[in-house]
């Protein structure tokens, strides 16, 4: 029973989506207290990639042998490999002791660069994008938001997730949102269970896709990435997923300028939708949308098998 939320300001309007998503996810805390994740889409700079990566799990930091030295070594190795591949790192920030945010310029094959960095033990790239910043950690929305300083993040759209771990462990690698490796700026959050996870995972792995966790929700991100790779538009990829993914699910996908939702044919997982001329808000429960719109609003539940996509 996870909670998911999404928001998009239409017509290129920007807003403090960091605070808005934090409030929405905090209102959904009762749906999942294990971890919270944000995928925030800012404007970004032309030609500059934002890289979010982590070099250890929160649990490792508390219990791991010699972990602090390892963290420094792993980060140094990332720096070396970025330089080796010819990436021009223009900014380095420590989000936490074990998670970092880099800005870099790069003109080569991005997938090769990503693969080369992730080859380092313990290193996982959370996201690469021009606008996307993907933040996930253990704790509720306020805790994660404060830890990573998300209040005041200005952007056009965002998705978020509060997780109640049912299918896999409580750690950062199993937390949502998932980034659709290796496509920059694509992220997914999911509420539900997929029953044909292993069949699809083996199929996608044979085609060269990478899985970082054993969480069934990661499959959706990889599936969408695979469809985009084969030339599908976001909306047609999502429509196809309704037939090809089995189980109960409601999920949200965001790209650099779009936000989409899809619901399985049983309509087993909730989704409340609010749409106005300038804003679209989606959440598992109306309380989340009400946390940013206290006034009376008209909302409805999308039906089974429905797919909707909005542009920023």
């Amino acid at each position, binding site marked *: 029973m996870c909670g998911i939320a999404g928001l998009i300001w239409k017509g290129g309007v920007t807003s403090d989506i960091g605070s808005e998503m934090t409030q929405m996810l905090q209102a959904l805390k009762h749906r999942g207290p294990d971890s919270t994740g944000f995928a925030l889409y800012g404007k970004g700079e032309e030609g500059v990639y934002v890289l979010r990566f982590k070099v250890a799990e929160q649990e490792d930091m508390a219990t791991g042998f010699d972990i602090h030295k390892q963290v420094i070594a792993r980060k140094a190795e990332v720096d070396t490999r970025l330089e080796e591949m010819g990436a021009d790192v223009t900014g380095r920030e420590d989000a936490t002791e074990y998670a970092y945010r880099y800005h870099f310029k790069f003109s080569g094959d991005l997938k090769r660069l990503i693969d080369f960095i992730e080859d380092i033990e313990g290193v996982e790239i959370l996201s690469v994008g021009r606008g996307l910043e993907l933040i996930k950690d253990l704790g509720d929305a306020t805790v994660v938001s404060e830890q990573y300083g998300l209040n005041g993040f200005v952007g056009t759209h965002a998705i978020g997730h509060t997780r109640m771990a049912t299918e896999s462990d409580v750690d950062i690698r199993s937390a949502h949102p998932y980034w659709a490796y290796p496509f920059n700026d694509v992220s997914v959050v999911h509420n539900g269970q997929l029953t044909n996870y292993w069949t699809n995972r083996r199929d996608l792995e044979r085609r060269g896709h990478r899985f970082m966790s054993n969480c069934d929700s990661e499959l959706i991100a990889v599936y969408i990435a695979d469809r985009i790779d084969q030339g599908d538009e976001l909306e047609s990829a999502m429509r196809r997923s309704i037939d090809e993914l089995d189980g109960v699910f409601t999920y949200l996908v965001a790209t650099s300028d779009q936000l989409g939702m899809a619901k399985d*044919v*049983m*309509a087993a997982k*909730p989704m*409340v939708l609010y749409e106005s001329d300038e804003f679209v808000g989606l959440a598992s*429960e*109306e*309380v989340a*949308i*009400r946390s940013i719109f*206290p006034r*009376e609003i*008209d*909302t*409805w*539940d999308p*039906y*089974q098998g429905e797919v909707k996509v909005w542009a920023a």
Partner: protein
Amino acid sequence: MGSVSTSHEMGLHEEQLRGRTQQMFFSATEEENYTYPWSYEVDFNKAADFDAADMSIAEINVKIRELMQSGHGTITVKNPRAKHSLGVGILNRLNLNFEGSLGYFGCGLIDGPNVRISGRVGWSCAENMMAGTVVIEKNAGSLFGAAIRGGDLVCKGQAGARVGIDQKGGTIIVGGSVGAFTGFMMQRGRMIILGDTGDNLGDSMYDGTIYVAGKIASLGVDCVETELTDLDKKYLKGKLELYDMEAPNGIDSIVKLTSGKQLWNYDNLEPTEKKLVL
């Protein structure tokens, strides 16, 4: 009336049992058949309202009970802000108005009150309602009126999936469309859908009646169309007029659906036993 005195009044602390059922000897007046012995005496003309914006769910529900206790028969709750589980478990005569939307499980387990909600409701509204009326001006979520046993449940907007799942009585009226698996395993009662329906309407229904004015995406297992009689038309006309609603193409265009009863195997032998007999 606190919980201690309630149990004392029911005779739970005395040797000689007294009570409404096995506990008390009584000559039932007509009134007594419609109220619980612990119900509050309320006056519909005595009205009260309060702002629920900054109150917790428990505080709001307790406040409603306190107002009933002090004899208020008309209570208006302002700014419910889509909080969950509001107005649940009310076993009393009461006019309850919500000026705004409710979250999940709104007005569940009620017996008696007349509720009006000016906004929308989330999942599982009026679950297991025994009697009374609930009228919602806007949309409703999934599992609308799950397992209701009596009363009228009216949604003037659209409702989600699995409307009236396990319905055991009463009437559910939806002004707009409904989602998949509406009337799933319905056992008794009536459902009136004025809009379109999703897939598998009335799947595995045992009994009861579903009236549909719009398009039906597909019928579930053992749900069959039957003749709309004059009695049905009269009933529909009366019910819809009561809530100021109209069938979009007139009452004659409404389709009546009931159980084909092909799945009724209660009196038959088990499949394995059949083999033995044959």
